[in-house]
């Protein structure tokens, strides 16, 4: 058992130490990628001074889906059913518009049983951060192939996978996702930045994080292993996240960087690293994924961002007061109105 993310002593804008963002002690395997992602969520929330009380944590079922217990103990959590986290999260974030939704799922939970709900969550642009802890395997049920398993991938009991993998970033893009990122659990800095940016994004923000399963799928040949990730991860876009309360101090060349302003006034500065990519161009994003796939490259960073899509709260024109807090006087129409209705039905 590993306690994720050690305290630092520093306090944030809420006057809280990082310990205030911790969760229970993890019961995942030592070295599991998922634990390092939990730590990054803690870091991001701490650094952004997010009030845990306003966060609602969601998950499905799997080792990954256990993670919400291991960060942000002060937040309500909802460990739902296998593959059905999106629906539950939809209901909850609509019920209370002040909630900040953070969902954690696995590749099996999202890509196999859950792909339908995943697509429809994105189509509705339900405001929440959706993190996939992608290890290409079913951890909790001990090592079967998930839908993101590589073709040719070998597992101890399950043998060799002969089906092509689903690319969850491409799936998100196809479903019109406005925030699509890919990262690697072994790249703490990038994961933290992306989680921070995602937390400020208004809509569904998908981060597909390769998160090695040290127990069932960490052979060097596996594209979901630590060693493969370390040697192959190529940061294609460096996304610097600047919260709304900080000034932009970074200096950058306008031709290699783009600045995206989010609805809350935060900024993301997208800096191209090496290769040409425009993260605000959907087709380019798809192209990038396709090319990387063809060349067996593991590209990371913020692949696509569109800060203009209306989210489901907008579409449903939610009132300012959370639906969950509306008083009886708002919820129950008057006696008079019923009398009128009855009159009309006579």
């Amino acid at each position, binding site marked *: 058992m590993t306690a994720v993310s050690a305290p630092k002593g520093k306090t944030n804008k809420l006057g809280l130490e990082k310990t205030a963002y911790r969760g229970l002690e993890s019961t995942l395997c030592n070295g599991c990628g998922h634990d390092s992602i939990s730590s990054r969520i803690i870091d991001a929330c701490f650094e952004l001074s997010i009030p845990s009380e306003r966060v609602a944590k969601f998950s499905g079922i799997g080792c990954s889906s256990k993670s919400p217990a291991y960060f942000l103990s002060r937040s309500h*959590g909802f460990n*739902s059913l296998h593959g059905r986290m999106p629906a*539950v999260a*939809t*209901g909850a974030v609509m019920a209370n518009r002040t909630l900040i939704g953070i969902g954690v799922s696995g590749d099996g939970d999202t890509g196999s049983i859950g792909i339908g709900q995943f697509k429809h969550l994105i189509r509705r642009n339900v405001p929440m951060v959706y993190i996939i802890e992608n290890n290409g395997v079913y951890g909790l049920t001990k090592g079967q192939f998930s839908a993101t398993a590589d073709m040719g991938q070998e597992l101890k009991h399950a043998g060799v996978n002969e089906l092509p993998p689903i690319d969850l970033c491409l799936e998100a893009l196809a479903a019109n996702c406005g925030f699509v990122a890919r990262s690697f659990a072994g790249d703490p800095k990038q994961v933290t930045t992306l989680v921070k940016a995602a937390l400020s994004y208004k809509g569904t923000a998908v981060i597909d994080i390769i998160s090695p399963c040290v127990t069932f799928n960490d052979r060097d040949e596996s594209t979901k292993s630590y060693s493969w990730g370390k040697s192959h991860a190529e940061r294609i876009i460096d996304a610097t996240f600047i919260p709304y309360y900080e000034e932009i101090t970074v200096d950058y060349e306008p031709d290699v960087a783009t600045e995206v302003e989010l609805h809350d006034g935060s900024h993301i500065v997208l800096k191209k690293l090496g290769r040409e990519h425009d993260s605000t161009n959907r087709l380019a994003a798809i192209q990038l994924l396709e090319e990387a796939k063809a060349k067996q490259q593991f590209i990371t960073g913020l692949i696509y961002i569109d800060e203009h899509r209306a989210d489901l709260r907008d579409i449903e*024109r939610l009132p300012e007061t959370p639906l969950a*807090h509306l008083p009886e006087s708002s919820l129950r129409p008057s006696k008079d109105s019923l009398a009128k209705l009855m009159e009309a039905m*006579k």
Partner: protein
Amino acid sequence: MSVVESKASPAPVGSGQPIVNDFSITIGTKNGSGSQTANATVLRALFKMGIPVSGKNLFPSNIQGLPTWYTIRASKDGFVARRVRAEILIAMNKATVIEDAQKLESGGVCIYSDALGYTPMRDDVTFYPIPVGKLSSASGLEGKLKGYAENMVYVGVLASLLGIELDELKNALMWQFKGKAKAVEPNYQTIVAAFEWAKENLVKADPFRVERMDKTTGMIMIDGNTAAALGAIYGGVSFVGWYPITPATSLAEALDFYLPRLRTDPETKQPTYSVVQAEDELAALGMVLGAGWAGCRAMTSTSGPGISLMSEFAGYGYFAEIPAVIWDVQRMGPSTGLPTRVSQGDVLKTYWLGHGDTKHPVLLPGSVKECFEFGWRAFDLAERVQTPVFVLSDLDIGMNQWMSDPFDYPDAPMDRGKVLTQEDLERLGGKWGRYRDLEGDGVGWRTLPGTDHPLAAYFTRGTGHNENAQYTERPDDWETNMERLNRKFETARALAPAPIEDRVEGAEIAFIGYGSVDSAIIEARSRLAAKGIKTSYLRLRALPLSESVGDFVRAHDRTYVVELNTDAQMLQLLRLDTPELATRLFALNHNDGLPLTARWITEAVEKMEA
């Protein structure tokens, strides 16, 4: 055979004495041919003439072209159940006219379009052929709309033969077209033209008449799905997740229609609710549980296949203790069955939905009025007991037109159940346990996400948990928790609507029924009473069963459980709840897709009593 044109003043069987305000009409048409307006016009005109009526649509699972029937029953005695055979047939469908006419009550009437090319084939029925095409020209309508006008022809002829007041027909049209003269006029012209034609060309040769009376004064007419939607709205529903399915769709559509009208904030003009059409029923219930967990009054509506798909989430809701309201407007059969036919086949399924020792409170509205009442009460129960509550309606109650006394405004403020606020937590110094049973009713206190207190949070899960909502695999924790859940179920038993009893002095036999079979039981009892057979009646209104049911059964020699399904599902639950009385309970179940009739009950009882 008696065709009026060919023979004047025949004497059909049963004629002589006029039969006033006591008959059934069947209108046989093709689906999608636009007969609904005509049917509704007749229904409403009779209703406004003070005559008790009901209207039932027996339609196919099809959009256009297949045979469909509408039945209108007028009953001076106020009986509104379906009858096995109609006295009057309006035959507008070539494909079914022969069979339809065959099914008429002896002594009945058949009004048929001469375009059907039908040759009457019964001696004991009065036949009136009508030149529908010619008469519908009076409307001046063309093309598709002309088809609609054709249906108005039968309205006019019927009005003439029965004596339906033209004014009331006009009022009914006005009501339906919301006063739009442009829509009313052509239709009304057709009615009048047909009325005049009938007066001149048909010789009344049957005994059926209507006469104004005063038995519907102050009453409304509505379908159960609309009533349910209104109930939910007055119950403060604030989140709806749903997926279309016959016959539940019209419930959600009524929500969509009335919510903007009744639940728009007068100041901000913003909705005080959210309705999301989900991608399927798994997602619909998932959303509802998410919203219920976060503090909304959340509901969904579906039918059998959707209920099946909701199994896993229903079990989750039970075990994680999340309030939710699930309407099951039942349709026929296992699997896809017959989507447009009625049944009460989901009793066992909803009661035990899930796996591994799950059970749910189930409300059983027996009228449109109860659809409204349970529409709001279900939320009180769900939030009070913190659990999914099912409401079992069915196609007959949900989609057909029923008379009713106006609905009563909720007689109590909303019961939002045990919720700890930030202030409560401060008072408690943050000491609380989500699943701790402080009051002995099995119900713990919950906090809503977003509650601004560092100790407000808890972790909701479908896995084993202890009082403090912590994960546990300890055998004792499991047992304690399951015992508490059973205690909670007893709380639900006490809070759920009690049965309604009519114990008759000296009755040896009794009926137990629920839901839409009520009207047939009422009528059957009256028929049996007329034959000197006294019967008591208990109408169930909820599961788990009230403890009073045992007393009722004990007080009679034989109790017949009337229901619309193949497996006598409620009988089974009754036997389980009162094993010592198991042999006094008898199945009186029927399941052919049609609303139950008093005749079937009466005959079945007589056979069993013989």
